[in-house]
């Protein structure tokens, strides 16, 4: 069950184009599973920025002098993330978590491939560790537009069987996109499961490749959300249910991890005509 806690910032450090915040968050690390996220209140009690920002949990430590702590990776995209990047040691933050449904792990040690776009690599580190513990081969592919937008290359190398880097400008690794190198990696390692976190376009392409290779895919989506706890209905996307019916589901509580073959990627941002409750007529 998620908790709302007052967290204390222990450290803020630059990592390429990102900031990594370490925060005390008693009650959250104890419940953490890879894929969970937290939301953070922005700007304090009088803030005009009223919407919480959501971040995938990057790392947790449930013991130590501070009790439970967690790390999040922040990319500065606007006023709210700018404010967060400017926090200092001992500042307090309003944290809610753990939220969402985590990644599903295979029962057996099957070969897995983890794909991270930009700071979408953040939730993959502890996932990789847990997969390795289960005896899985863990290939990792990190991609970004440019080297500065890659996150955690050195750290993830330690937990991956093989790491492949792609950048669109060729500043690091293979020039191109993660999807340019993924088929080869899957082919070579007979990958059974693909885990992915990154922009929607990347997830859609990764899910398609996974389907082509008959691999199971788990995609962590990033939809803009107001509440993160399932009450605002803003973060919906069309997902096919077990009964074959498409519903507009909340990515915060029913995701953020979805099976890649069940998300109707091309129709995100629309209401598919056959979705449950879709308007019979144009409503506009």
């Amino acid at each position, binding site marked *: 069950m998620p908790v709302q806690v007052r967290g204390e910032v222990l450290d803020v450090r630059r990592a390429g184009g990102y900031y990594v915040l370490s925060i005390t968050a008693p009650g959250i690390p104890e419940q953490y599973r890879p894929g969970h996220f937290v939301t953070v209140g922005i700007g304090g009690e009088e803030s005009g920025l009223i*919407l919480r920002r959501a971040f995938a949990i990057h790392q947790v430590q449930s013991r130590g002098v501070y009790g439970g702590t967690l790390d999040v990776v922040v990319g500065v995209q606007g006023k709210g993330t700018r404010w967060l990047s400017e926090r200092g040691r001992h500042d307090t933050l309003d944290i809610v978590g753990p939220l969402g449904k985590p990644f599903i792990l295979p029962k057996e040690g099957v070969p897995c491939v983890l794909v991270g776009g930009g700071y979408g690599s953040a939730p993959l580190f502890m996932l990789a560790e847990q997969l390795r513990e289960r005896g899985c081969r863990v290939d990792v592919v990190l991609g970004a537009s440019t080297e500065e937008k890659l996150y955690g290359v050195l750290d993830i190398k330690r937990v991956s069987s093989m790491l492949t880097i792609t950048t669109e400008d060729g500043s690091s690794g293979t020039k191109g996109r993660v999807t340019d190198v993924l088929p080869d990696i899957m082919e070579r390692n007979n990958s059974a499961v693909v885990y992915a976190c990154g922009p929607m376009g990347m997830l859609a392409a990764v899910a398609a490749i996974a389907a082509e290779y008959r691999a199971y895919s788990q995609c962590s989506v990033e939809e803009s959300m*107001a509440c993160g706890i399932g009450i605002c209905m*803003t973060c919906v996307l069309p997902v096919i249910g077990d009964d074959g019916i498409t519903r507009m589901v909340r990515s915060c509580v029913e995701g953020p991890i979805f099976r890649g073959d069940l998300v109707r990627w091309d129709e*995100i941002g629309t209401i598919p005509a056959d*979705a449950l409750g879709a308007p019979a007529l144009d409503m506009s």
Partner: protein
Amino acid sequence: MTRAMFGRGIGSAAEPIPNTDMSAELASLSMPSPVLTASGCAASGRELDQFFDITKIGAIVTKSVMLRARSGRPTPRMCETPSGMLNSIGLQGPGIDEFIEVDLAWLEARGARTVVSIAGESVDEYGKLAQKLRTAGGVDAIEVNISCPNVADRNQVFACDPEMAANVIQTVRRQSDSQTPIFAKLSPDVTDIAEIARSVVRAGVDGLTVINTALGMVIDVETMRPALAGVTGGLSGPAIRPIALRCVWQIRQALPDIPILGVGGIRTGLDALQFILAGANAVSVGTMTFNDPSAPMRVHNELALALSERGFSSVSEAISYGHRGADIFEADGAGEIEPE
């Protein structure tokens, strides 16, 4: 006053220190607190129950339910604005039958007081919704969301026309259990909100929810298109608080006795106090629940303290206190009430 900002175990869930009598009435609905959730900002209570005990606040006002399952509008449905947000959800929901079977049943089993918000596209639909609720258990009051467009009448919003608003209320009143109080949720997007209020009161409403969101718009300067897929959306949050407060004040002056549920950008106990002083009998915490999932309980506790600090021993003593000295209240023979 100090704000206990955080949830369970950190402060806000603790009992309020002061002895203030926090009981509140909205028509025939008696509640242990004057703080409710707001429709569309609490789903059906289950998620918030993880953060505070939902039976301790006044009531859960559920997300407006329609006759049939509805997918809502495409994304983006939301955009942050200065001290607020714009939304265009399009009333996504399961439809009344599943709502009664799943959500209402859960709320009843949980022991929460429930105000069921209903929305229709025609007068007939509102009537059918009221009929369905008549035989359902756990309905403590009905809030009629008349701020949706009437599809039959060229998308005219019911709440913006006194006659259409009254038609809806008459129909709901006729189809509902006579013991169930009915509230009409009014839109601020009208020239004279008191006129709409008088019209629905004449049509038999038991109370008024004041206000729904104000229609707004944002253009994304990167794409140079409207930020919401629905183009326009409802503006909510602290940005609209002064508008909501003004509406409560105007309606209280026009209708001294009608129960009012004040809504609009309430973030703290002091915000809630403003609404009560303006004439609200109870208040809803809406959008700020997205900001702080413990907000309704926290606002309750902060309000108890704020009332006590000002010498009020109960919520009821403070209702309309901001109007003291005005003719409308002296005519009732009440005169000016001084807190202890």
